[in-house]
């Protein structure tokens, strides 16, 4: 018998009924190999790589990603994914992910682990010092420019729209004009 995904669910359901009759489920489960997304929570997302915007279903169990697969309901991708989209599981389940803020002091040869709170406090202090030092109210022609010449920013097309919006709002409130990102290159 060919067991499709939907068909398999029916088979499991039948097993469950038998369970109610006092038959142990264990051998059945061992025999049928439970689907890896059993009891998993499904969340939809959109692929973070190219700009086609394919749909992906992320299955999680116990706070861990257990599976990612193409979203068959998505009108563009209709369940298909390319090599990159098909591997987004590894963006989450990956020992290479940065998980601690790191700090490199001037002339240091190594990183140092620091707390996020310390890093953000130190960065905020440097932003203020650089801004205050380089803030230019008038340009050489005497025109008002109200800008911070001493800080630049690049990034990011990898952020969500809402993040892009508050990022540029923050940078422009600081007076930055050197604001650029991937769209320029």
């Amino acid at each position: 018998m060919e067991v499709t995904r939907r068909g398999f669910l029916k088979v499991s359901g039948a097993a469950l009924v038998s369970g109610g009759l006092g038959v142990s489920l264990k051998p059945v489960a061992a025999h049928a190999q439970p689907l890896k997304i059993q009891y998993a929570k499904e969340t939809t997302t959109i692929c973070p790589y190219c700009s086609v915007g394919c749909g992906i279903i992320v299955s999680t169990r116990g706070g861990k990603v257990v599976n990612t697969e193409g979203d068959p309901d998505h009108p563009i991708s209709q369940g298909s994914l390319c090599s990159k989209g098909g591997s987004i599981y590894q963006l989450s389940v990956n020992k290479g992910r940065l998980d601690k803020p790191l700090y490199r002091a001037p002339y240091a040869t190594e990183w140092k682990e620091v707390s996020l709170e310390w890093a953000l406090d130190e960065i905020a202090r440097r932003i203020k010092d650089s801004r205050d030092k380089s803030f230019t109210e008038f340009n050489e022609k005497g025109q008002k420019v109200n800008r911070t010449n001493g800080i630049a920013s690049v990034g990011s097309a990898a952020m969500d729209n809402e993040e892009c919006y508050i990022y540029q709002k923050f940078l422009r409130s600081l007076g930055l004009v050197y604001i650029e990102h991937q769209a320029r290159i």
Partner: protein
Amino acid sequence: MTNHWIDIQFSDCILAMGSNPASNHPISFKYIQKAMEKGATLVNVDPRFTQTSSRAHLYAPLRSGTDIAFLGGMIKYILDNNLYNEKYVKFYSNAPFLVNPAFRLPGENDGVFSGLNGTKYDKSTWSFQKGADGVILKDPTLQDPNCVFQLLRKQYDRYTPELVSKITGTPVDKLLQVYKTYAATGQNGKAGTILYAMGWTQHTVGVQNIRAMSIIQTLLANMGVAGGGVNALRGESNVQGSTDYALLFHILPGYLRAPLASLPSLKDYIEKSTPATTEPKSLNWWKNYSKYITSLLRAFYGTNVAPEEAYDLLPRLDDGKNYSWLSLFDAMYKGEFTGFFSWGQNPACSGASSNKTRQAMAKLDWMVNVNIFDSETGSFWKGPGMDPAKIKTEVFMLPCSASIEKEGSITNSGRWMQWRYKAVNSPGEATPDGELISELFLKVRELYEKEGGPLKEAVTKLTWDYGPKDAFGRVTHLDAHAIAKEINGYFLEDKEINGVLYKKGSLVPSFALLQDDGSTSSGNWLYCNSYTEKGNMAARRSRKDTTPIGIYPEWAWSWPVNRRIIYNGASVDPETGLPWDTEHPVIIWDGAKWTGDVPDGVAAPGAGRPPFIMKPDGVASIFGPGLADGPFPEHYEPLECPIDKNLLSPQFINPTIRRFDVGGTELDLRATCDPRFPFVCSTYRVSEHWQTGLMTRWCSWLAEMQPSMFVEMSEELAKLKGIGNGDSVVVRSVRGEVDAVAIVTARFKPFDINGQTIHQVGIPWHYGWVTTAMRKYSHDDKKPEVFTFGDSANLLTPFIGDPNTMIPESKAFMVNVDRKGVK
């Protein structure tokens, strides 16, 4: 994209040029194949025979950097053979407009347009003739020698197939086959689409490449129709959105211009930014400029700061000064910055002339790098050729969340804004970018509140109401919905518009209702309508579609106002209102209103409103005087090229580019027609990696499939250089070198350029030293499961950009290739 991915299936001829969708946008190929199953022709023009070429009905090679010559020849072919849609051109483009008789074309003016003064054009002759009433003079018969149509004919008359072939290296018969096949889409009911990507933008004539194709699409009536349009295959999941949200120096959200020093007040800004028109029937949508900037200022600074005062808090650019990517890294290299954010980006590999970029970062006092993996940027200070003991730059490397670890929206290439949900928590202390931005802002604001500082109000008065707050007024949890609503915009007071009362605090239903009296807010007018009292439009998942053209209007949301095909007013006959293509109508007049897609720029059929409503005169610009380098595209050689002259004119390269190599720094080098670097080189991508590889090199499945930097070359070149398939080689330009593995293939063929044999090679740009085996890993360094080999292709690319966009010329430059150890 003017159209969207699903729409490609309605095309009769798909031209993939300057792109390789089969490799780089693989799922888009589903729709190319669907079109082919229905009888469409796939035409591919590329220096290399790619995966897209392998499925194409017609493949034509061309030398990198010669697209305008190729397309100019197509324009000539269309005009010579009367293959254009005359009514479309007459009603929907500026072809009938009469141009200033003093205007000169390059063919009669030493290869440049009239008005060149140094590297800048005085555009006074690039103007239209006007009558006493101020209305542009036109010749509806398209016969006047000064009308745009006749000037177009004259401009491209020089682009004969024989001359084009000498420049591009494309055999004449191939040229004519492509021209004939694509020009057939000018027939009524036929649609042709162009799919382009960085293969067109990364040139010193990048914008004019796209302009040339836009002219073709206008001549063939392919704008606004299903299966047509000008479609940029954008490279990143949200690069459309990040552009819309203005992470660029020259714009504010929604493509409003950044304030200039010469515009001291909001009134000046609005006056200078709002286009006027004398064309009686033109809608001139940008007349609403004041509403969008005023609503944006409200979104930034709320109701406690008057819009005029809020404008005063914004930074201004010096007039005429460029602050874009190349200028930014040039300034950094010259030590102009103390601080730098590299947020979700890896410029040490993505920036052209990466040696300069990497050395520039050593001139900083401090730098913040936010990413999900270690990168060549964050760790630049210990990269190849760097001595950490001599580098003062402090670096903060903050781990952020991956896309499935946070909630928010992204906008795809087809302008669809789609909502994503959080599936899991981030590892360790990795934090969503938005939370990091918010935390930083709140800390900086606190410092200004406590200590004061120059123009502190710009920071302290900024609105920041993005979620629940603690007793000290700090946002404790960043709510993406709160931001999305601010972007859409609110009514800030009760407002009656056309007899309807909109309550204070309610979301604005559409940008047509935004006001310039301060009564509305909107963080991005283009996204007004995306989050309304009806809910979060981007989160919609209905597959309902009543149209025959697959627009799925209730799946997610598309800007503007959920319109799926922009300029769709041009899909119908100007006199009858009937669709050009009755089988695939985009909009249909039902006697009282338009149905189908959200109509764009049309009044009732035959009302005479020109449909390109974002242009002041309402029509497509065949003559485009807005650009820096000419109102028509003209072929110029790349900054670095293999021949010593432009075969078309005495003007060798684009005269308006900003030359960093002239009077620039010691790293701004150029080698053109230099025997040390005899081969044309172009960068490209592969399916298994993405951009600098930062999000793919760390994934073992992908790294295993494409582990190594390589250089692809023809069998003829390999023989010439004594290189075998799989050999270790070094690719060198005047700016740097990279190690690579040689891939000897039949996919590249030498070009015959004006009787000279010219070789071209290609290199992917996904690699970087951080994930390689040979580097030193200390205890705090993450180590990839699968090592990759090789560094960034951008170590070789030139520091030069298009004069309009300043996008670097990474697709055409000169290199040499030798076996490792041989020089």
